């Protein structure tokens, strides 16, 4: 078997669904072909089984030849062993193919998601990418999984057809026409059943969502009441699912009857015709038994063939979604010159609002509207194109990679990833414990660390679910501080912490960032009071600047930040 993951998943040559599937198959062509080889031998051995049994009866029993009996019985056993061996070898190839396609696609999807970055939610939805990464990846894997089996099925049908036609072409034709007709008829019957099953699954999912809702709100229900209402509703919905289940069972039972009836009657027809031929001397008893076996056997490869066809169709649809995702381009293309040197801290200016941020200073921005703050922060970090300049150079003409390296915008929507806390905090690269602890100290998050069982080695869960809102906010702040960017833009970094902690953070943050440019969007007087300069933004433009103390005389500023009687 090959080894996964492939360090470099490569790049599909052309972004069309058909090419994508072929490209995947080409990356592991040897395994696909080997699988097809086993895929031919395996059903052939199975198909030869009835033939060998028939010969054992004819040559051994009817002809009363002990030697032939043993020889043919031995052939039966040998065929069984070959079948067992090629069966598992084929499974192994199929799995390797499926995994290769699955893993490679996942790598490409992940790489594309990181390439799109902030653009991702604007160009597609998280749900769409997840459904590609979870469901479509499986469909594509499945197509490669069944590829060798499908090739094998075709081969075994050919082999059996040849044997049958050589034995008795009339009877052979009946089987060759009858079996596909039967498989087709069963598939036709299956379709409405699948619809009903899908509806039942939906209803079942609804019911589950209902129960999950009850569990999620259980504290509320047990605290305030409403258990009876929700219990009654669950019972009613559960009974609806029950009746839908019975409805599906009725269809399933009818289908099961058809599934027994159709092959049964086909076999009866073959027996009838075959027996007449035996009577006429055109066929032996053993051959008749063998035909019975062929008819039973053929249903499997024919069904496999139709499964293979539908798997490839589904994979084609899935591949279309994959290539559509891979074809997306980030809004802000990489390339362009680096921002000019780092010798000293540079000024940051946003002509649109009139905001000027002095290099190396701690600037606070108080916005009357939180949406305005978010938009301004996006411009400063070049998440939206604008005329913002850094050291006089427009951000839009610089390399976005370099902008990201120098200017870090950290808001409360920033994600905490799963992993050891030390590594997750040190986003910019490995940092020694002293620096990590210093950053945690700035964010006043020492108590968060203390409560963790393994300290910095503790593995935090995805999204930091084990932390409260305030703890998470401080961890995010520590991560941003530890990155030590030239310019740090923080949006409401202390909105979820208590006043005691906020006061500590404000003082430590100002000290830790001394000499470097820091912009804090906030309306809390504690933070504003620690800034070198404060700008008040109303209606999208800077309407006043000064220090916190001097601005308090401005009634608009006072109304926004001061928290005394009559101010609200």
């Amino acid at each position, binding site marked *: 078997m090959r080894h996964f*993951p492939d360090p470099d998943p490569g790049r599909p040559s052309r972004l069309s669904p058909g090419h994508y599937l072929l490209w995947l198959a080409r990356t592991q062509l040897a395994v696909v072909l080997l699988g097809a080889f086993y895929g031919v031998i395996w059903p052939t051995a199975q198909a030869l089984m009835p033939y060998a049994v028939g010969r*054992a*009866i004819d040559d051994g029993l*009817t002809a009363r030849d002990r030697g032939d*009996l043993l020889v*043919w*019985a031995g052939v039966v*056993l040998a065929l*069984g062993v070959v079948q067992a061996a090629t069966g*598992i070898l084929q499974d192994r190839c199929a799995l390797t193919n499926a995994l290769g396609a699955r893993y490679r696609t*996942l*790598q490409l999807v*992940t*790489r594309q998601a*990181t390439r799109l*970055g902030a653009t991702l939610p604007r160009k597609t939805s998280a749900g769409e990418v*997840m459904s590609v990464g979870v469901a479509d990846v499986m469909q594509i894997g499945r197509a490669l999984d069944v590829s060798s089996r499908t090739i094998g099925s075709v081969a075994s049908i050919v082999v059996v057809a040849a044997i049958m036609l050589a034995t008795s072409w009339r009877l052979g034709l009946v089987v060759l026409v009858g079996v596909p007709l039967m498989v087709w008829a069963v598939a036709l019957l299956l379709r409405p059943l699948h619809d009903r099953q899908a509806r039942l699954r939906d209803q079942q999912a*609804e019911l*589950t969502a209902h129960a*999950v*809702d009850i*569990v999620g709100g*259980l*504290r*509320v229900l*047990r605290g*305030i*009441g*409403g258990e009876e209402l929700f219990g009654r509703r*669950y019972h009613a919905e559960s009974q609806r*699912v*029950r009746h839908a*289940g019975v409805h599906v*069972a*009725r269809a399933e*039972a009818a289908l*099961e009857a058809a599934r027994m*009836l159709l092959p049964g009657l086909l076999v009866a027809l073959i*027996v*009838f015709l075959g*027996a007449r031929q035996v*009577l006429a001397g055109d066929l032996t008893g053993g051959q008749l*038994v063998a035909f*019975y076996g062929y008819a039973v056997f053929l249903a499997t490869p024919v069904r496999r063939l139709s499964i293979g066809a539908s798997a490839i169709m589904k994979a084609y649809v899935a591949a279309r979604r994959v290539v559509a995702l891979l074809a997306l381009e980030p809004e802000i293309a990489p390339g362009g010159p680096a921002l000019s040197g780092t010798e000293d801290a540079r000024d940051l200016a946003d002509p649109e609002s009139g905001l000027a941020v002095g290099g190396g200073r701690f600037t606070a921005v108080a916005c009357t509207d*939180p949406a305005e703050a978010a938009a301004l922060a996006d411009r400063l970090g070049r998440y939206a194109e604008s005329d913002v300049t850094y050291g006089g150079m427009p951000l839009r003409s610089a390399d976005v990679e370099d902008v990201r*390296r120098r200017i870090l*915008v950290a808001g409360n929507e*920033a994600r905490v990833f799963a992993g050891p806390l030390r590594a997750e905090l040190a986003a910019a690269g490995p940092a020694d414990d002293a620096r990590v602890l210093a950053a945690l100290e700035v964010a006043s998050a020492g*108590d968060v660390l203390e409560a963790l069982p393994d300290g910095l080695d503790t593995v935090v869960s995805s*999204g930091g679910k084990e932390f409260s*809102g*305030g*703890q998470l906010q401080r961890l995010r702040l520590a991560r941003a501080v530890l990155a030590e960017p030239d310019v740090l833009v923080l949006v409401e970094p202390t909105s979820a912490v208590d*006043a005691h*902690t906020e006061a500590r953070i404000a003082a430590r943050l100002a000290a830790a960032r001394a000499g470097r440019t820091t912009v804090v969007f906030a309306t809390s*007087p504690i933070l504003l009071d620690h800034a070198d300069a404060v700008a008040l933004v109303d209606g999208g433009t800077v309407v006043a600047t000064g220090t*916190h*103390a001097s601005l*308090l005389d401005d009634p608009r500023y006072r109304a926004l930040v001061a928290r005394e009687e009559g101010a*609200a």
Partner: protein
Amino acid sequence: MSASSAGLPVASLREVRRHARRLALRHRREVAGAVALHALGAASGLAGPWLLGRLVEDVNDGVDHVTRMTLLICLFVVLQAALTALAMFVSARLGEKVLAQLREEFVDGVLALPIGTVEEAGSGDLITRTTRDVDLLARAVRYAIPDTLISSVTIVLTLGGLVLLGPLLALPALVGVPVLWVASRWYRRRARTAYLRENASYSQLAEGLAETVDGARTVEALRLGDRRFERVNRDIAASYAAERATLRLRTVYLPTIDVAFVLPVFATLVIGGLLYLDGMVSLAAVTAATLYTQQLLVPVDTLLFWLNELQIGGAAMARLRGVRRDLAVVERERAAPATESVDAGGFEVRGVSHAYRPGHDVLHDVDLTIAPGERLAVVGPSGAGKSTLGKLLAGIHQPRTGTITVGGVPVSELPLDRLRTEVALVTQEHHVFRGTLRDNVVLGRPSADDAAVEAALRAVDAWDWASAAGLSAAVGSGGAELSPAQAQQLALARLVLADPHTLILDEATSLLDPSAARHLERSLAAVLAGRTVVAIAHRLHTAHDADRIAVMESGRIVELGSHDELVAAGGAYAELWRSWHGGAG
């Protein structure tokens, strides 16, 4: 009964078996009917090969019974199809009935869990039981049980048919049994953990991708692209290792049972053939026996496949049966001490210490008197024990030492319906239920009319958006999504409508923006005039507006008094107020 780590019980194997037996007995007529129908269906299925054997013998002898025999074969095919379909339907109908009953009993049990248990267990375990275990049980009841039943009946009848053909011919069919037995045992012992690991590895892959996608902006901001690629590669390596482990199991198991399936055919041919040559059995018997032996393959395979699934279904049932109404210790619904009405609330907290883990007290010897109708704010750094005090006041936990009484009655001993009229707790955690906006408000007073709902929503400044959406708008998962701030307003509206004597608000407005929060608190205060309110908050204006303020630090109340008193006293609160106020006051 053993307890799981999260504190929710799991039923014992014995209890599960006993319950399964009880269910079977309760529905014995349906069960017997299904078994009989399956047996008749399987028996009709055996007629085909036997008739074919007779036919082969007859035509070899030149006897022409072909038409009659073919008609007989057709008859049995039709009979088998009809009987099997009927049997499937009967057992599915019973299965759906039992399944609905089991899941409804489970949800009733969940709804009766004591508040303290809900708080301690967390929702993870309950959610797994609600989703995964209910699904696993459904799979077992819908597919595993009927298929096992059918296969067992078919195997027994086929073996019976072989014995009828000639006892000697039945023996070769059994040569595969020891191999199958040993191989299946070997496989089943290892398969469960291996496949669980494989499934877990896929959850891990999905979770990693979800992180990358949800955090795409953060990935770009912190330039974490390479790390995310490393993460997916790590997850792929883990998934690949898990896949290889299950593949190794299959590589041993599948060829073994494949050979075990062909051995009986070989043995029947050889032994049956030799017996025939010695004149001990007929040609028809050998032919039929060979076909029967081949036919055994399918039901045996099915049986082996589902045995594992049955075990999993049993484990799921054990977890579901662990949460039952009759098991839930419904301590509050026990006859409570007959107490006089304790109007208007008012708390006496005396010498209360509390620990979640033995030896780690988070509250130390707290004394506090809250007068009826008073508004008390609790402030202090995180970890000071504010939320714990709130939970104890709300009667969710019993204090380790000391007492908390409302009108002389210990809060934690009030019966549930009385407790609800007495005190309610709203926390930062909010939940919007699936249903209409109205449903979400009337929980505590199902009889409330729309006017009352409107009044409650107005009291929390939510009427603007609520009236725009309409009271019948579908919200919660699957409906319109509400912002966290709106969800908090709903939680408060619920409380206003339920109208308990005492409200404990633990950061209940923290998700609103500061000025909206303050406005809400004021309109709420107007509606709640006369009610006792304990507000835990990190925003100091909440404290400023309260009658009295309790400042907590490290599990103790360090300052207590009105805003003006505390500012005048020049202690911790005064210091904080000054800095929070930015030197303006």
